[in-house]
């Protein structure tokens, strides 16, 4: 079957029936191309969103102060709820199941300068464990430590982008930068996997921020953040519920009031997104299988037309001494050859397009590394070829086994 002579016979028929060859090949190449694009895009979106989640610990609970929306104990709604240092200490000491816990006080657009370079950046006043929640990666030096907080040191940790803006290629560690008129010593530079935005942030000890920038009471906090280790969603929700009740008691608001404080439960969010991706994956597979089926039907259809068109030729060949096997193998080898080449082309085009997108969509959120599992791509190509050929085998077999006189009558 694989003798050179047979191949010459096949190449002769292929090169002399270009339209038929093109149509068969196009159906296959298009099907594979679409499948690759589809699977790749699905993966791209999933990778993009997962990347987004890398920004923060996925097992974290975030608490934000809010405004009461329900009257409670004779107090009208519309009261602002703000956290304080003692709340942070209480949760840290009394609530079980927390792993890392930290807090934040934010200063938006802090005017910053070093020598002639200036910029405005977000500055967060926080505690050492923040580094665990944010997932910051220390490139140089260290993060804010306990001593910094205890002694309200004027030290600062800056993001990579801030460092590039202010110091260019020069040394940053140990230098003093001016933030809103006060000099801070740079003790660390960090980067963040999540996004560049995170690298335009600066961190100072919470105590320093509260003291130096002189806010009322000097104990106020904007957020309290904590991680729950590997607690389940139910356990996490219980922790959130306990903390919510603590705040409700302390600040005298209705525990059912969803606006008095805001709770962001990343465990829950992550599970939601994960199950959403599960569904998207099912959906893409449904469409993918549909595409393959359509391709199979398309190939079978073309094969049937090919066989019909060649019935007379089959009759002639049989009259000249062709066995049914030689006829079926001629038609099928030709079809396998065309569909394999076309499938490969479709595969190549699809993968190339994904590669191109992947390289040119660096800055795009929610879409990253649109890739396909090569095994799946090859597997579906082979499946398409196999079933397509199987669809052509039946009519070929039938045409090859009818009496030659009937085949010869075909016009």
């Amino acid at each position, binding site marked *: 079957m694989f003798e050179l002579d047979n191949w010459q016979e096949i190449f002769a028929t292929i090169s002399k029936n270009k339209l038929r060859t093109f149509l068969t090949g196009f159906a296959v190449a298009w099907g594979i191309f679409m499948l690759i694009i589809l699977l790749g895009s699905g993966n791209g979106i999933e990778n993009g969103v997962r990347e987004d989640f890398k920004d923060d610990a996925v097992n974290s609970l975030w608490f934000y102060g809010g405004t009461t929306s329900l009257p409670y104990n004779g107090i009208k709604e519309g009261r602002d709820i703000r956290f304080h240092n003692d709340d942070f200490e209480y949760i840290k000491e009394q609530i079980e199941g927390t792993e890392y816990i930290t807090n934040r006080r934010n200063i938006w657009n802090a005017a910053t300068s070093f020598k002639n370079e200036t910029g405005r950046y977000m500055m967060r006043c926080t505690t050492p464990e923040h580094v665990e929640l944010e997932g910051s990666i220390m490139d140089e030096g260290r993060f804010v430590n306990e001593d910094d907080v205890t002694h309200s040191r004027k030290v600062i940790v800056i993001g990579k982008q801030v460092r590039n803006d202010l110091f260019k290629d020069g040394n940053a560690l140990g230098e003093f930068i001016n933030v809103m008129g006060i000099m801070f010593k740079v003790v660390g530079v960090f980067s963040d996997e999540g996004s560049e935005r995170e690298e335009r942030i600066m961190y100072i000890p919470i105590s320093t921020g509260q003291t130096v920038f002189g806010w009322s009471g000097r104990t106020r906090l904007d957020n309290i953040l904590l991680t729950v280790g590997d607690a389940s969603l139910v356990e996490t929700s219980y922790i959130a519920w306990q903390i919510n009740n603590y705040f409700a008691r302390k600040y005298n608001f209705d525990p059912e009031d969803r606006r008095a404080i805001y709770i962001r439960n990343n465990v829950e969010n992550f599970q939601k997104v994960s199950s959403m991706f599960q569904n998207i994956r099912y959906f893409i597979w449904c469409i993918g299988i549909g595409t393959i089926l359509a391709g199979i039907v398309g190939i079978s259809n073309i094969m049937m037309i090919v066989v019909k068109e060649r019935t007379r030729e089959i009759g002639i060949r049989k009259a*000249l*001494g062709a066995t049914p096997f030689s006829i079926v193998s001629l038609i099928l080898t030709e079809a396998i050859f065309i569909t394999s080449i076309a499938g490969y082309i479709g595969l190549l085009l699809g993968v190339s397009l994904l590669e191109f997108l992947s390289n040119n969509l660096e800055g795009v959120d929610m879409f990253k590394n649109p890739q396909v599992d090569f095994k799946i791509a090859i597997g579906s190509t082979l499946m398409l070829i196999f079933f397509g050929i199987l669809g052509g085998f039946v009519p070929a077999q039938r045409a090859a086994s009818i009496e030659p006189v009937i085949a010869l009558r075909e016009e």
Partner: protein
Amino acid sequence: MIKLVGLNKYYYLGKTPLHVLKDVDLEIGSGELVSIMGSSGSGKSTLLNILGILDSYQSGEYYLDNHLVKDLSQRKAAKYRNQFLGFIFQSFNLLNYKTAVENVALPLYYQGVPRKKRNALAMEYLEKVNLLDRAEHLPSELSGGQQQRVAIARALIANPKVILADEPTGALDSETSNEVMNLFRMVNKEGITVVIVTHENEIAAQTDRLIRLRDGVIDHHVVQNQTSG
């Protein structure tokens, strides 16, 4: 060479079977040049197709070179067609995407003859039918007479024992018909049995024996041109 004993052939088109060949007994000797005539529907083409193992029959026996041809496997049928028989059709039945020389060489492809050798042999046979200069032409670039000569070369190349021709001159003018008949006679002189189905008296007159079919029955034999047999 060919022997039919009580052969019956039916076609099942509607509810009642059509009895096309009725108890046909026939013997054609080696090296004969025979024509079969009859009005349309007399079963002459069916008879030729059965002789060529292109069609099956229901009862009776058909011996080709002393081999019983009945309920053959497809493989065996293919082998017999390839080794014993050469076909000539009214509509030539050349493969339109193959050149003359490729068409002629095709039977040898199914015998497993290497490409070079079969193309060389095909050129010899094209020379025999005087078409050497058209070897690389496609059928569509050839006249009817030339196409039929290509078909004859193709029928001859496998060195068959019997040539079966179904209205070989039906689509040709009288001049080219004569050329084709001359070829048949030449082939016959080399010892190959030739059976021609025709409805033209001039063609039949050039054969050794004329078999007349009427309604599926052999009406009579006419022996003529004794000399060339």
